[in-house]
């Protein structure tokens, strides 16, 4: 696969174009229109989305709502410009006590709730995803037991970021690193963009002692370790000397194997949640975590099968079992192929 194809696949055409343009690297003429178009499209979408977001945040603040902008929108200032990182939606954090009021506020602003997806709102091409924690624990509760994140500490450490791209309340650098590692793992390291985020966050010089303290307190040591390991061993990106993978307990055989598979079969890999289950204590904890991920509560399962009528919820579990069988076979097939 050529570099331009990889960049398109990963949504990083804009970053590639920007880098070539500013570094004086000559792009073969046949690729310029494609890269330039992608760069301009992302820039336009982000420019409009961030402007609308700022307007909304101001209105929300005057309504007494406290809203924190999560990565990636909050990471936009770390990139060279707004054309370098695509955003599918904007993730926002609100306190559980303000979730309902935030929904009412968004509806009053013209946003429509997305059917069956609690916290998801859309208006004129802008999608906002409201969260009350950093691991989507309201969707899969077992995630909250896999990573015990102290949300009051997250809010206490939040900082106002005022840049040309965005003025908003955001996570502190250390929490942003923690969030990005958990997010990437939850999605099986599927997108390279999260590792670019991670790399740029590392370059922003977080306090690694604070990071270490946080991941230990929040039971997120493994997810950070996996991310750093992946960066170092599979993407050849040096990790900071302040905190290297040698500082973590050695990876188990299964963990190492799954990480290797994540790399080999990315972006189709789906082993992220399995890997995350290693953060749970004991066999029972791991099984419980995976059980809820594989067979979540009905409301969540209905999101997996959005066209299935609500009255057929019991059928959804049968469909889910069939779906898992297919996906599992595919993953095992890829495992066999990669060996």
């Amino acid at each position, binding site marked *: 696969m050529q570099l331009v194809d990889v960049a398109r696949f990963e949504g990083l055409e804009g970053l590639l*174009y*920007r880098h070539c*343009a*500013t570094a004086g690297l000559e792009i073969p003429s046949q690729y310029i229109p494609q890269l*330039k178009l992608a*760069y*301009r499209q992302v*820039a*336009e979408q982000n*420019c*409009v989305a961030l*402007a*609308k977001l700022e*307007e909304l945040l101001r209105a929300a603040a005057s309504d007494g709502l406290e809203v924190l902008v999560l990565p990636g929108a909050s990471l936009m200032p770390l990139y*060279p*410009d*707004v*054309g370098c990182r695509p955003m599918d939606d904007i993730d926002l954090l609100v306190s559980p006590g303000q979730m309902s009021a935030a929904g009412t506020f968004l509806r009053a602003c013209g946003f429509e709730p997305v059917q069956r997806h609690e916290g998801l709102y859309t208006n004129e091409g802008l999608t906002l995803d409201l969260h009350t924690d950093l691991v989507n624990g309201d969707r899969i509760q077992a995630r909250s037991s896999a990573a015990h994140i102290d949300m009051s500490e997250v809010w206490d450490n939040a900082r106002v970021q005022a840049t*040309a791209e965005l003025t908003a309340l955001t996570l502190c650098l250390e929490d942003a690193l923690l969030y990005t590692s958990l997010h990437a793992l939850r999605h099986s390291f599927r997108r390279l963009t999260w590792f670019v985020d991670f790399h740029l966050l590392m370059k922003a010089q977080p306090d690694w002692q604070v990071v270490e303290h946080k991941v230990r307190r929040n039971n997120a040591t493994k997810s950070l370790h996996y991310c750093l390991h992946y960066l170092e061993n599979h993407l050849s990106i040096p990790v900071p000397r302040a905190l290297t993978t040698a500082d973590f307990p050695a990876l188990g055989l299964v963990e190492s194997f799954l990480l290797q598979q994540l790399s080999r079969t990315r972006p189709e890999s789906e082993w992220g949640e399995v890997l995350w289950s290693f953060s749970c204590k004991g066999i029972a904890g791991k099984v419980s975590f995976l059980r809820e991920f594989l067979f979540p509560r009905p409301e969540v399962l209905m999101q997996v099968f959005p066209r299935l009528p609500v009255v057929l919820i019991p059928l959804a579990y049968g469909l889910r079992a069939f779906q898992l069988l297919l996906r599992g076979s595919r993953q095992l097939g890829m495992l066999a192929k990669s060996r």
Partner: protein
Amino acid sequence: MAVAEQGGHSGGDGNSLWARSDVLYRELADGGMIYDSSSKQVHHLNETAALVWRACQRGALITEVVDELCARYSVDEQTATKDAHAAVQYLSAGGLLIRSASASKIPPS
């Protein structure tokens, strides 16, 4: 903070054009972009138009813009003047520049 369309000087002659301060400008690798939230329109600028826009923001004269274009892109004065005027025309047509008389509320930057 103006680009004079004619005469090579700004301010008070009714020909000066100013950048609107209520729109959002983003610098890009190959020019710039302006988002006008009132009309919900996005304007993509090439490098020349971006240079003229910045000139409108900081109060440069059109002659300065032409000099900058000549120096940056190694073009002759005639070409640079033509390009600069085309960019001014594009920005004006997009409603992004305002005449000095109506721009009196905008403080010079």
